[in-house]
């Protein structure tokens, strides 16, 4: 490919119908040459012996002008061309035979396209849901099979997952719930002050964190932090064919990879939720103490008098969230196929799905517990 030289042109030859190609017919001049070819559509014959440089792009354009068959006749018949040039013409003609001539242009209809896309999306989500239920079933089946055999729990993997998903997540969970606790307290103070009831700020913080925020915030953080990690870990093993390697050696990838992760999260998320709860109460309490001048004894008394059921309602959701997050993260990892881009897509998808599911289940649970009067 060279940048200099004169772009090719087509000229009317002396002998009637015949066109004469001159100049360079190369990729750099493609746009000019395209126009030249369009102007001379339907030519019958072509002389190529005055062409200076020629490459595949030039030959493709000649073929567009003459048709592949006629160009092949030129290549075979024109003795004035060098052997290399005829070889080039023939090779590209052979290749063109295998390609449909013109790039087809499909006229997209906005309406049908839109409908088709909606249909595909619905179908995809239904399939996804069925697949997720299937994976949950598979995980439960393996867990049921192995629950009585602790020796096959993969203790090393379990411990390292506990460290990674639990211990390492501790600071961020504590810090964020602390801050949200303070924010809730400020919010309560602003609203309740109008009724002269700012002392109830402490009740607001206590009830909201025990029932909802402690576990919900911890679950959302874990969903963002751990579900993505599970997907990326398992996904890159899939890309690297390590999953297949496990399978052919007679190991069950779900037993090796899914179970330790699910168990680890079942252990750590309730603990993280408890830490979140306590640190939220701390944050709220600190604001009540310093900004609202509520005495410490009063705050502690309110915390102590919250009925136990609220704590249980909150913490009871933690194992459910843990299971859902771990299962979604692992399943998305197994759905990765072949490429680096796919790992990225499924990691995103696992975070979005797990946060969505956590909030959805939490909303349903809130409704249920309220109706039950718990």
């Amino acid at each position, binding site marked *: *490919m*060279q*940048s*200099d030289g004169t772009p090719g042109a087509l000229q009317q030859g002396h002998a009637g119908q015949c066109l004469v190609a001159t100049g*360079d017919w*190369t*990729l*750099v001049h*493609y*746009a000019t040459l*395209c126009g030249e070819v369009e102007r001379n559509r339907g030519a019958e014959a072509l002389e190529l012996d005055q062409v*200076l*440089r*020629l*490459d*595949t*792009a030039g030959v*493709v354009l000649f073929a567009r002008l003459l048709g592949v068959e006629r160009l092949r006749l030129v290549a075979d018949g024109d003795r004035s061309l*060098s052997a*290399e*040039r005829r*070889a*080039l013409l*023939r*090779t*590209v003609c*052979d*290749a*063109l*035979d*295998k*390609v*449909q001539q*013109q*790039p087809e*242009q499909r006229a997209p209809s906005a309406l049908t396209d839109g409908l088709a896309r909606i249909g595909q999306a619905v179908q995809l989500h239904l399939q996804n849901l069925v697949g997720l239920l299937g994976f949950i079933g598979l995980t439960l089946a393996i867990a049921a099979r192995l629950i009585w055999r602790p020796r096959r729990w993969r203790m090393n993997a379990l411990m390292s997952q506990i460290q990674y998903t639990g211990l390492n997540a501790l600071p961020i969970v504590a810090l964020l719930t602390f801050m949200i606790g303070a924010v809730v307290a400020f919010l309560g103070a602003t609203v309740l002050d109008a009724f002269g009831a700012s002392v109830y700020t402490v009740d607001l913080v206590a009830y909201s964190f025990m029932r909802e925020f402690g576990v919900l915030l911890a679950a959302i953080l874990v969903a963002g932090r751990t579900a993505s990690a599970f997907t990326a870990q398992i996904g890159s093993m899939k890309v690297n064919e390590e999953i297949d390697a496990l399978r052919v050696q007679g190991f069950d990838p779900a037993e090796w990879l899914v179970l330790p992760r699910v168990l680890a999260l079942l252990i750590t998320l309730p603990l993280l939720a408890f830490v979140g709860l306590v640190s939220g109460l701390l944050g709220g309490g600190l604001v009540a103490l310093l900004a609202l001048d509520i005495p410490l004894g009063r705050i502690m008394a309110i915390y102590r008098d919250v009925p136990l059921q609220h704590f249980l309602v909150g913490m009871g959701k933690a194992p459910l969230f843990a299971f859902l997050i771990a299962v979604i993260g692992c399943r998305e990892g197994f759905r990765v*196929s*072949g*490429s*680096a*881009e*796919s790992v990225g897509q499924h990691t995103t998808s696992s975070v979005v799905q797990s946060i969505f599911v956590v909030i959805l289940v939490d909303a349903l649970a809130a409704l249920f517990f309220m109706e039950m009067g718990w």
Partner: protein
Amino acid sequence: MSERREGPLEPGEPIIQVRGLQNRFGEHVVHDRLDLDVMPGEILGVVGGSGSGKSVLLRSIVGLLRPSGGEVSMLGEQLDQLSERRRVLLERRCGVLFQQGALFSSLNVTQNVALPLREHLQLPRAEAEHLAEVKLALVGLPPHAGRLAPSELSGGMIKRAALARALALDPDILFLDEPTAGLDPIGAAAFDQLLLTLRNAFGLTVFLVTHDLDTLYTACDRIAVLSGKRVLVADTLSVVAQTDDAWVRDYFHGPRGRSAQLAAHATREA
């Protein structure tokens, strides 16, 4: 791929000229005062034991690696003295086939080949993809392969698709890093033939790093042996095979070398 070569290159002048090339990584010296010429229109096979710096040589010629010393000139221009713009123009005249193909996994095969056409030459999409399909057919891929993602291709198809991408801009020089490694013998032999066909049609110069003795016997015009941090010998196969060196002897006259020689003779007679 323009089959007439013009510009600053004199007739008889090498298209790639490596002089006194030095490459070292920390204490480890890979090349020391290495000289090599590649002539226009030839297929040069570069061989050498594992770790002898074949791929490093290729990388320093195409400019992926800045050599610690010495100079490389290509198409009559010295690489380290070029302005950024001229360097890009020069790079466009080289096509590189990486060992693993290095196809972009987020694009399908046709888009992979069309990418340089669209980006460097601003061709409209339909035109670029049409040219890309021609390139895919040139390297012997079936038409439906263009719509596949790189992860859906077999090893042989990946090499062919990567070759089509290397040929996208009709380069003058083609660099191939172990093109037949990991292919079955039939696929490898077909690749050798494809290489010869393309070279004869387009007048390409090919710089070929390989371990494959069959490729050396069937496709290469000259062979350069890398040994002891420099080019031990660069000449036709018969001359190279006679070189008095332990590695060369083991390589060409070992059991695999002999059988490749026999096979090449048999093909030529048939």
